[in-house]
């Protein structure tokens, strides 16, 4: 039988325990399951594996995949191959952290609670916001829940979202909105950025939240100046999905007047893991705290006046408010938030800025090389932070296949999400890419077609 090594009860134990319970067999303990629904026979599953065999099977599966360690990746679109300092896995691998539950008993959970409090602080420092929560599932669900926060705060039910916001996030947003009867309208693009005139025209006193992304899905730095005034004139909420790494260098959403900041925190020292587990970041101005979903850690004192931390403002949450809760979120991505905390503590102000600068410089170097190649056109003008869209002289799938022959995980084909952008790909350049790797990519592109 499989999994014996996780089961400490011996045959003698079981007999002694049944005697204590006053029953003859374990089967008696399942007599309350009506015969009509009892499983006849055994489950049909592959035979159990020993640890050695399981490792072999899983390793065989893993080895079928190409990945950041056996190929050079230029993939982005929300998930990136950033450098992960060695310290992170040694901290998230401390089993006092990873084998604990949500910190319901604060006196034996000060480790996780203080780490969350520090994480919340660092998210505020990055975004310029006043408060942050302990995490959402991912960038997509953070955008959706943030938009809903705006609806709660304004008691309105219509949201404007720019088409320059990641289509992966918009898909989740659409789904969350559709079921509860909230309205969603898309602001058109102009040169790959939010069309500011259209936004102004679409704004009205029925709009709850305006959702923008910085840098946007195409890697472009949007011109945010003046938008906050426009949005606030209609008493709407200004939500920005920001790349946390970019905030080492870019103006903060607080500086250009955003009310809620969300984002995907995978870039902060978290493995890509095929898109999850990753980290939904959420922060806001203080006045929205009552609408904020999820866990929040707060400082307090114990009976002797010592500082300590607890989960707080729980009257927003499902286990207290039930159907009146701000959200149904219970489990979040706490361990991933811990990874992000260790990352930010390791990098510090200087390190995060250096990573951001290297992304900017390498992306621009690559952009200048690739845009001059015959048949390749920069899809949009503007300022690119760590990725850009490029229009190819052929099918992105074919190009990626060719690049793979040279151990390159190429770009992300974005044409399926933007029918008007035929043969268009996103290429991302993090601090991990060096000049030689970029030059190789450029050479392979040049030789194509």
């Amino acid at each position, binding site marked *: 039988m499989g999994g014996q090594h996780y089961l400490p009860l011996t045959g003698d134990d079981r007999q002694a325990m049944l005697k204590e319970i006053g029953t003859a067999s374990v089967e008696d*303990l399942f007599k309350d399951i009506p015969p009509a629904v009892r499983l006849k026979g055994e489950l049909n599953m592959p035979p159990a594996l020993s640890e050695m065999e399981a490792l072999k099977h899983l390793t065989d599966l893993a080895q079928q995949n190409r990945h950041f360690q056996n190929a050079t990746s230029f993939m982005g679109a929300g998930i990136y191959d950033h450098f992960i300092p060695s310290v992170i896995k040694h901290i998230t691998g401390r089993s006092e952290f990873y084998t604990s539950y949500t910190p319901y008993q604060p006196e034996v959970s000060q480790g996780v609670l203080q780490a969350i409090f520090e994480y919340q602080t660092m998210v505020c420092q990055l975004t310029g916001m006043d408060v942050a929560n302990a995490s959402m599932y991912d960038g997509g669900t953070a955008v959706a829940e943030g938009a809903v926060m705006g609806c709660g705060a304004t008691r309105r039910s219509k949201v404007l979202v720019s088409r320059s916001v990641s289509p992966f996030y918009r898909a989740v947003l659409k789904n969350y909105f559709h079921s509860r009867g909230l309205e969603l309208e898309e602001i058109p693009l102009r040169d790959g950025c939010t069309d500011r005139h259209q936004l102004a025209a679409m704004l009205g006193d029925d709009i709850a939240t305006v959702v923008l992304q910085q840098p946007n899905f195409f890697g472009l730095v949007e011109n945010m100046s003046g938008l906050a005034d426009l949005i606030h004139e209609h008493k709407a909420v200004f939500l920005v999905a920001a790349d946390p790494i970019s905030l080492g260098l870019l103006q903060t959403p607080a500086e250009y007047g955003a009310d809620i900041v969300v984002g995907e925190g995978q870039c902060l020292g978290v493995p890509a893991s095929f898109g999850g587990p990753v980290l939904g970041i959420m922060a806001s101005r203080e006045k929205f705290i009552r609408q904020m979903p999820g866990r929040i850690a707060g400082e307090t004192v114990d009976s002797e006046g010592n500082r300590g931390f607890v989960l707080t403002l729980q009257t927003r949450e499902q286990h207290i408010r039930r159907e009146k809760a701000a959200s149904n979120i219970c489990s979040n991505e706490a361990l991933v938030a811990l990874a992000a905390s260790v990352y930010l503590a390791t990098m510090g102000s200087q390190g995060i800025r250096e990573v951001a600068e290297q992304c900017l*410089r390498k992306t621009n170097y690559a952009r200048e090389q690739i845009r001059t190649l015959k048949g390749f056109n920069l899809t949009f003008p503007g300022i690119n932070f760590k990725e850009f869209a490029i229009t190819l002289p052929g099918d992105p799938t074919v190009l990626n296949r060719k690049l793979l022959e040279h151990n390159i995980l190429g770009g992300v084909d974005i044409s399926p999400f933007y029918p008007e952008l035929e043969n268009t790909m996103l290429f991302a350049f993090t601090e991990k890419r060096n000049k030689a790797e970029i030059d190789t990519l450029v050479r392979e592109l040049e030789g194509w077609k």
Partner: protein
Amino acid sequence: MRKPKALIFEISRPGRQGYSLPTCDVPAKPLEQLLPEPLRRSAVPGLPELSETEVIRHFTELSTRNFGVDTGFYPLGSCTMKYNPKVNEETAALPGFAFLHPCQPEETAQGALELLYNMEQGLKELTGMERFTLQPAAGAHGELTGLMVIQAYHRSRGDLKRNKVLIPLSAHGTNPATVSMAGYEVVQIPCDERGLVDLEALKAAVDDTTSALMLTNPSTLGLFEEEIVEMAKAVHEAGGLLYYDGANMNAIMGYTRPGDMGFDVVHINIHKTFSTPHGGGGPGGGPVGVKERLVPFLPVPLVDKRGEGFTFNYDLPESIGKMHAFYGNFGVVVKAYTYLRMLGADGLKQASSDAVLNANYLMSLLKKTYHLPYDRTCKHEFVLSARPEKKKGAGAGDIAKALLDRGFHPPTVYFPLIVEEALMVEPTETESKETLDAFARTMEDIAREIDEDAEKIVHGPYHTVVGRLDEVRAARSPVLRWPSS
């Protein structure tokens, strides 16, 4: 035992550095040319500046201020805090899984797709469902997915009147919160004197506005809903569907299946039943399975087998869409799959068998000292009431703090809401008889101490790094970041 700990910001010193990066080797251009000044910030103020040693010492010390399953017994009811096998951590960290980009061409991620496919086959068999989505990132996320699928199903039939979801009073808080999030109204169904759903009340509540009944079986009282067949019939006859909250699936693996009980939709908390660690709050995973008629509405993409290969199927025109930007918590699924393969059919059944045996054994020991409101065979957990102790001066919350001083994580307290001063105990199958005996003796000691000097218990815990924390103060004047001013 009290031990103060500085915040990471308080040990920061300007000029210290914890990272090492290569020199940027592309031709240097003035920053101004790449990103004009008005778009830039000057610096990120306040982020800590520390050497690597200090970072490690800080977080290592924090870890010592935390209690996990690896630290000791953690009978937190409804949370299934079973042992988290270490091999799971190894497999999820394999580079071929950990460093995979979600937009990679399918042919470069066949191993990952095969794993997702295999996991789905296992879950289908375990639950008796037609297909699964592995996208939901947590149990509550699975609940929302499931209700959206149900909603899409009713809408597709032009059945637009169904705006209510029925929930027993004993349900987890996520159930009613999910119902609201999906745009539905909650109808509460009471429990009878046995602690089971009141069948007559349920029959009276179902009508042509019933979208679904959400049910946890066994319930949060740890009791199997014996009238499940009649309940399913009542809901189905009214045109409603049955949703299975799989939070308590650990009790019934290999004994019965939600699909056979009549459920149309099920979610499973793989961070409970499938042994993946809870990470201090997450990440979890909440795969959702459905019966055949609901398959068209599942989120995209599904993973299909085509010939020898595996592929993402986005061609579901009636799909609700996406619940997560990508495929959910893949890394958590890798851990759950490892567990599934290591246990196999009889290992899973033995796990449930021992979980139920452990719970009944511990219940039979503890009911000698504590009040057991629903005294009948339990499944994986049981609920005591500390009402008598409360009258003597120390309630469920105080008993919990007393357990902290004695090296145990306490049971869940004050839930389910239908039991006054509830202590909800779930030992799981990975605990030994010796551990259960020691816990029972400790609970007896605490009961005795309450008899002798309840006041002393009320002021605990005494041996933790901080004393009892003032939660009211934290909520009244919130300090949610450093510095506090």
